[in-house]
């Protein structure tokens, strides 16, 4: 007799292979990558004695650079968020011609070589309108220039982060808020932004971290003047260029410590309202 239609013999001899090789492979990749990072930091710390760190911290120039880095990164990260929220929202929710082009243009600071960004900024500030602006706020070779150079790159990363955040947020609650009498702005303020809180902290963190590591555009556009526009990456470069490897490494370690502390703090704030 034929088996009934839809009948499929159960292949009991087939057993699904165990899942441990899968987990073993992805864990190994993670461990190898992590080892590389830890080994780099460990080698650097091993090379530098605590006395080098102490000596670096005692230098007035280096202390100035650290404080300047902390202040400028914080300002440029906040400016980045201020820009990233509306731009990210527009990219995520807006429907308009040329959206793909806009999306690509906004990624330009991410793909351009850092030096080129510095050169572009320098040339931009040679144009008449920017020269007029500089009569009131001088950017070239000043602290404002440091912030602007950091902002140009950091904002592009923050925009990407906010765009992803808004794309993943359900638009329905916001629409319901509109039917309940909210203006677009009120719906954004009361419904969308609170739900995007974690994404906003990520955006600030990524912008802050990018700003801290920014070197090329700052060197070209704001210079490397000690006690004026010298930030931590500039210090590392200046110390290296005079052959003071110990100080360069000590400052690098300080930079790593600063970024880990700030990023962990930021993540903790984002997770616990």
């Amino acid at each position, binding site marked *: 007799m034929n088996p009934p239609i839809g009948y499929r013999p159960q292949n009991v001899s087939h057993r699904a292979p165990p899942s441990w090789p899968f987990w073993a492979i992805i864990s190994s990749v993670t461990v190898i990558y992590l080892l590389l990072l830890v080994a780099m930091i460990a080698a650097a710390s091993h090379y530098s004695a605590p006395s080098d760190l102490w000596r670096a911290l005692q230098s007035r120039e280096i202390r100035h650079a650290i404080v300047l880095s902390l202040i400028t990164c914080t300002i440029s990260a906040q400016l980045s968020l201020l820009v990233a929220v509306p731009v990210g929202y527009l990219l995520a929710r807006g429907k308009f011609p040329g959206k793909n082009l806009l999306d690509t243009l906004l990624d330009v600071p991410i793909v351009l070589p850092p030096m080129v960004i510095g050169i572009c900024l320098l040339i931009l500030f040679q144009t008449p309108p920017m020269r007029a602006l500089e009569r009131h706020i001088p950017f070239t070779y000043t602290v404002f220039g440091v912030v602007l150079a950091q902002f140009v790159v950091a904002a592009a990363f923050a925009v990407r982060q906010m765009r992803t955040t808004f794309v993943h947020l359900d638009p*329905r*609650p916001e629409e*319901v808020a509109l*039917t309940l009498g909210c203006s677009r702005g009120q719906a954004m303020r*009361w419904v969308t932004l609170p739900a995007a809180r974690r994404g906003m902290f990520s955006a600030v963190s990524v912008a802050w971290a990018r700003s801290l590591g920014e070197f090329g555009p700052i060197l070209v556009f704001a210079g490397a003047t000690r006690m004026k526009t010298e930030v931590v990456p500039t210090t590392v470069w200046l110390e290296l260029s005079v052959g003071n490897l110990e100080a360069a490494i000590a400052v690098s370690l300080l930079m790593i410590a600063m970024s880990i502390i700030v990023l962990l703090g930021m993540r903790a704030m984002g997770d616990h309202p």
Partner: protein
Amino acid sequence: MIALEGISARSGVFELNNISLRIPDAIYAVLMGPTGCGKTTLLEIVCGLRKPATGKVLINQRDVTREAPGNRGIGYVPQDGALFPTMTIRRHLAFAPQIHHWPRTKVTDRVTELADHLGIAHLLDRLPAGLSGGERQRVALGRALAVRPAALLLDEPLSALDPDLRSDLSNLLQRVQREEGISVLHVTHDRNEATRLGEMHLVLSSGGVMSAVGQT
């Protein structure tokens, strides 16, 4: 009263074709139709989240086609409730009255009244995460009713619920509609639900054409 006059719209694969309907005051209307025929789109047009290509939307004889969603006097309960993830249930119920600048005591009274009415008084200080499907729908319903809208739009409010909860909530919907005395447009694809709740039955076919069935 909810009235549509010659509404047409096109969106991706489906279209709505010259749809006209009239739901009288305090009538519970049920709209049925196959999945993907544009039922949700029609609700979005009524509440102003989407613009029709042609036609008019009237709420209580007032042409609201060009009004913003918030100025139409409509309460909208989307499919999964779409609660505000960061707000407590109390704030959900108080949300619309606060946006409408009600005095504080009136807001508090309305929240208490709604919470008792909908059986969610014990949930007031919780966040939406962790609420059951039925609880979410009750909260969404309370949020939509808070400023006493003239019409209530429900998008498959019972579809995600267990059979027991379904009958509880459909009783509640019926009671609320009678007590608040509002017109309801309830979208579903469940025939039993439609028979049980509807005083007026509408069918949207996959060609985007509306017909009224067995109107009482």
